Each structure stands twice: as C-alpha cells, then as structure tokens.
C-alpha cells in the first residue's frame, strides 16, 4: 500500500484498517476500533487545545491588550504555565461542601466537558476529515449544547449555596434566552444549503460564503453564540462583583478545572462553528486536492474568529442582566425572525425576477440592517426626549 501524501488522513485510516484486518479481526470490529481511535484522538486533541494552549494564549492576549506581561516565568513565554496550573489543581484538596448532592455535584463538570467535546463530532476539519456527517448536524449542535446548559444547572443546584444557585439561575436564563436567536439564525444556512448536514453546508458554500449571502444571520449567530458560551461582555455567569463567582463557587481542584476547560473549549467551538457555517469551513483554493491545505484554511478562519471574540472580550464592560435579556428578546429575536423571512422570500423571488442570487440576498440584508438601525435610532430618540422633558426620570426612565 503506497502512502498518499495528498490525502494523509484517509491513507492513515486505510493503513490502520489493513493492519487490523491482517490480524484476523472481523471487519465490523475493525470499523468500531477505528472509530474509537478517532473519538479518542478527537477528544484528546480538543482537551489539549483548550486546556493547555488556549488558556495560555488567552492570558497572553489579555495581557497584551491590557498592557501587561502575562505569564512569563514557566518556560519560554510562560508556555508551561497551564501545565503548572494543572499540577496545582490536581494536587489540591478536593472539597465537596456539606449538604451538597454528591453524585450530581461530580457529574456536572463531566457533562460540561462532554457537551463541549461532543459538538466537534460534526465539525468538518478538511474534506473527508469529519467525525461523522450527520444529516441532522445543525440540530445536533443545538442538542449537545443544551446538555451544557443542563450541566450548569446541575452544578449550581448541587452546591447547596445561595450564590451558586443564583448564578446558575442567571446563567441558565441567559443561555436559554440566547439559544433562540442562535437556533433561528441557524435556519438561514440550512435554508440556503438545503440540508442540515454540516458537511453539506460547507459544500454548498462553493458558490459563495454564507457571510456574503446572509450577513445579518452571521452576525446574529456570532453574537448569540458568544452569549451562549458566556464570553464577555456576556459573562454574567462569573460576575465576581455581583454574585460571588456564579454557579461554580463551590468547585475546587480538577472539578473546577473541568468547568474551566469546558468554557474555553466552548469559546473555540463557536469560533469553529462560525467559520464552518458562514465562512466556508475548509473551502479555499486547492483544498479539494490537498486536504491538509483545507485543514490549514479551517484553522486560519477559526483562529481569526477566535481573535475577534478575544478582542471583543477584553475591551468591553459587562452588560447588566436586565439589559442583556432585553437586548435578546427585543432586538436579536425579532431580528432573527425577520432575517429568516427575508431570506425565505428573497431566495424565491430572485429566480422569478431573473436577478443574481447573491445581489438579491445582499440587498435584502442591507435593507433589513438599515431598517433595524432606523428603528433603534427612533427608539433611542424617544427615550432621550422622555428624559429631557422630565429631568426627574433620569434615574428610572433611562434604563433601557
């Protein structure tokens, strides 16, 4: 068997399959073993990426943006800092507070990791390099994300602590609220691609990335996924200044570490999803012949989106919970519904009128964005007038 350097992943798979079959194992068992190996590699890769590399990168970035040095003692550029942290966390006394529901308390961080890793099963890294191309991929992402919400609820309720409970309630309220615009925005790529399979959505972007066809939906998905992952400015789940530290106050040691890793992994997951669903995934010149190149494109796009998330994260103040929820229910959700309607009608009208599909979509989206801005301006003007006419109302009336 000759090794095909153009497509190393398929070749490695075939090589392993041949080797195992040579040992006289049944073909079904061989497929199962290969899948298990794939799952192990994927989960291990995701955990290493999030636990070691991203935590370091995140601190370095934060330090650069906030004009300080960040970790710089352990190893070159402090790159071994996460490993030192892991050793610290793993040798720390593990405290489960009195009155906690022990089983649920232990299960919660594991479920959090599971939900963050599980999403990667349907993310295509390169052509033919995807865990499994489910035909309900998009909904699968939503479903696995829902388990993350559940894990936070479990963590907060099992801790037997008022603040953990309150933090969990707030977090869940925020996460479920922002799930709505996210899910509705996901309808748009589904509609444009005609499939829910993530691989199919990437393939459908050959004619043009969906960020061109549906910029409003892209922005909606990006913002609401960021809120869903609890990144600043939506980081109410760890508002140290308001509720001690949110749902995970009582967690220590590796249990806390697992929540932390899950959060970081979730952050990079939304970057990867935005890149896949709206920025063309692994698509790029030459990616079809050289899957490695596709992997590089995918990594570059993901890193770019992650960088944008980090920039937003380190330069914005935290939003108040009432503003946060009002922003969701009064702006994002109606806008997402409008985006779906506009896309549905524009895509049917374009062939009927004989116009270019991309032009029609872009025009419709720009019109929608313009209308939104006008509505927002009118709203702000109304509030300003109320405040100026009634100076006494400044304290209460200017809220939203």
């Amino acid at each position, binding site marked *: 068997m000759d090794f095909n350097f153009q497509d190393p992943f398929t070749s490695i798979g075939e090589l392993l399959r041949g080797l195992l079959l040579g040992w006289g194992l049944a073909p079904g068992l061989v497929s199962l073993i290969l899948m298990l190996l794939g799952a192990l590699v994927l989960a291990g890769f995701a955990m290493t990426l999030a636990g070691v590399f991203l935590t370091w990168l995140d601190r370095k970035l934060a330090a650069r943006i906030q004009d300080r040095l960040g970790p710089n003692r352990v190893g070159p550029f402090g790159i071994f800092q996460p490993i030192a942290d892991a050793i610290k966390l793993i040798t720390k006394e593990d405290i489960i507070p009195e009155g906690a*529901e022990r089983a*649920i308390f232990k299960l919660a961080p594991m479920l959090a990791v599971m939900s963050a890793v599980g999403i990667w099963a349907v993310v295509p890294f390169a052509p033919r390099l995807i865990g499994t191309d*489910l*035909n*309900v991929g998009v*909904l*699968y992402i*939503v*479903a*696995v*994300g*829902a*388990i993350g*919400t*559940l894990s936070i*609820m*479990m963590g907060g*309720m099992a801790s037997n602590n008022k603040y953990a409970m*309150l933090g969990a*309630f707030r977090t*869940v309220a925020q996460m*479920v609220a922002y*799930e709505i615009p996210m899910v509705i925005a996901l309808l748009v790529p589904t509609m444009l691609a005609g*499939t*829910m*399979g993530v691989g199919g959505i990437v393939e459908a972007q050959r004619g043009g990335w969906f960020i061109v066809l549906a910029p409003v939906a892209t922005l909606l998905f990006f913002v609401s996924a960021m809120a869903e992952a609890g990144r600043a400015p939506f980081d109410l789940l760890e508002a140290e200044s308001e509720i001690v530290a949110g749902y995970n106050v009582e967690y220590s040691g590796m249990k806390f570490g697992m929540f932390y890793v899950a959060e970081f992994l979730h952050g990079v997951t939304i970057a990867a999803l935005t890149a896949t669903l709206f920025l063309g995934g692994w698509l790029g010149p030459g990616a079809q012949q050289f899957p490695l190149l596709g992997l590089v494109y995918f990594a570059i796009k993901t890193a770019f989106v992650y960088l944008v998330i980090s920039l937003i994260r380190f330069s914005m103040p935290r939003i108040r919970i009432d503003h946060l929820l009002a922003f969701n229910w009064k702006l994002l959700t109606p806008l997402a519904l409008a985006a779906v309607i506009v896309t549905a009608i524009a895509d049917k009208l374009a062939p009927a009128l004989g116009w270019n599909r991309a032009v029609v979509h872009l025009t419709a989206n720009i019109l929608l964005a313009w209308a939104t801005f006008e509505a927002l301006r009118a709203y702000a003007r109304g509030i300003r007038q109320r405040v100026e006419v009634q100076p006494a109302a400044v304290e209460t009336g200017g809220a939203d």
Partner: protein
Amino acid sequence: MTLVQILFLLFGLVTLLASLMVVTSPKLVHAAFWLILALAGVAALFILLEATFLAVVQVVVYIGAIAILIIFAVMLTRRVMHDTGPQVNRSWWVALLVSLVLFGGLVLMLAQVPALAGTPAPLMVDQETLLEDLGRALVDADRYVLPFELASVLLMASMIGAIFVARPPSGSEERSGER
C-alpha cells in the same frame, strides 16, 4: 443476540429504571433529573428506530427546554412543600393496582397479535430524503398544513396564556425579597 438487540435492552432498561425513579423518588429535584435520564433513553431508542430527526428533537425540546422549565417550576414552588412527609397520597395502592392491571392487560393484548413479531423492512429512502419529505408534508396543502398552522396558534396561545397566569399581579408586595 445481536449488537442492536443488546443496545435496545440497555437503553430500554435505563429508560424503564429512570421512569420508575421519577415516580418513586422522594426528592422532587431528583425526580426531575431522573426524568431527564428517561427522556435521554427515549432519544436513544429513536436513534435505534432510525428516526434521527426525532431523536435530536427529543433532546433539544425535552432535555434542553421542558426539563429546564420543570426545574425552574420546582424551584419556584418550594417554600412550603419541603421534601418531607409522604410523597404519595393515601390511596397509592389503588394507583399501583390500576397501573399493574393496565400493564397486564396491554401485554395480554399484544400477545394475541401474531403479526407484531416481524422485523422491519429496510428503509427505502435515505435520511435526507425522509427529512425533506417531512418538511414538505408539514406545509403541503393536501397533507398537514392545517395541523402545522394550528400548532403555531396553539403555541402562541399557550405562551401568552401561561405568562399571564404565571405573572404576579403588578404592584403586589410579594415581589420584594425575590431574587
């Protein structure tokens, strides 16, 4: 025993045990978590039945949404009814009898139908076509468009109704002290 049968027995057993715990667990919060496990087991059964869309919907709707709603409701109604005292009413044995008789009757009835022992034909179409067909069926004027639109009206009515039932009358003093 094939692998699929073992998987069915596993998921079925998990679902069954979890649903038993739902109705017997003394703590309501625990019952809610057992309910989530039972719902997850049903989702796994849907995958075995090759209704993958319904399996995902089961997780999104039941575990992601309805379970959260139930947990919130449990939390909101706890001030008086602590998890002490009997969780079942005085005539619980009648309920047990009724459900056992019902189960026995159903099993007897099933045993009398011979055609049910057969195995299914393989699916004619792939999952993608199936999903498209479902999408068409829901908006096709000859098929399910009326239930589809009625579902929308039902959802809207229940949303508005439930919110107005659940909201405290405005200006009531009981809001103070809540978090």
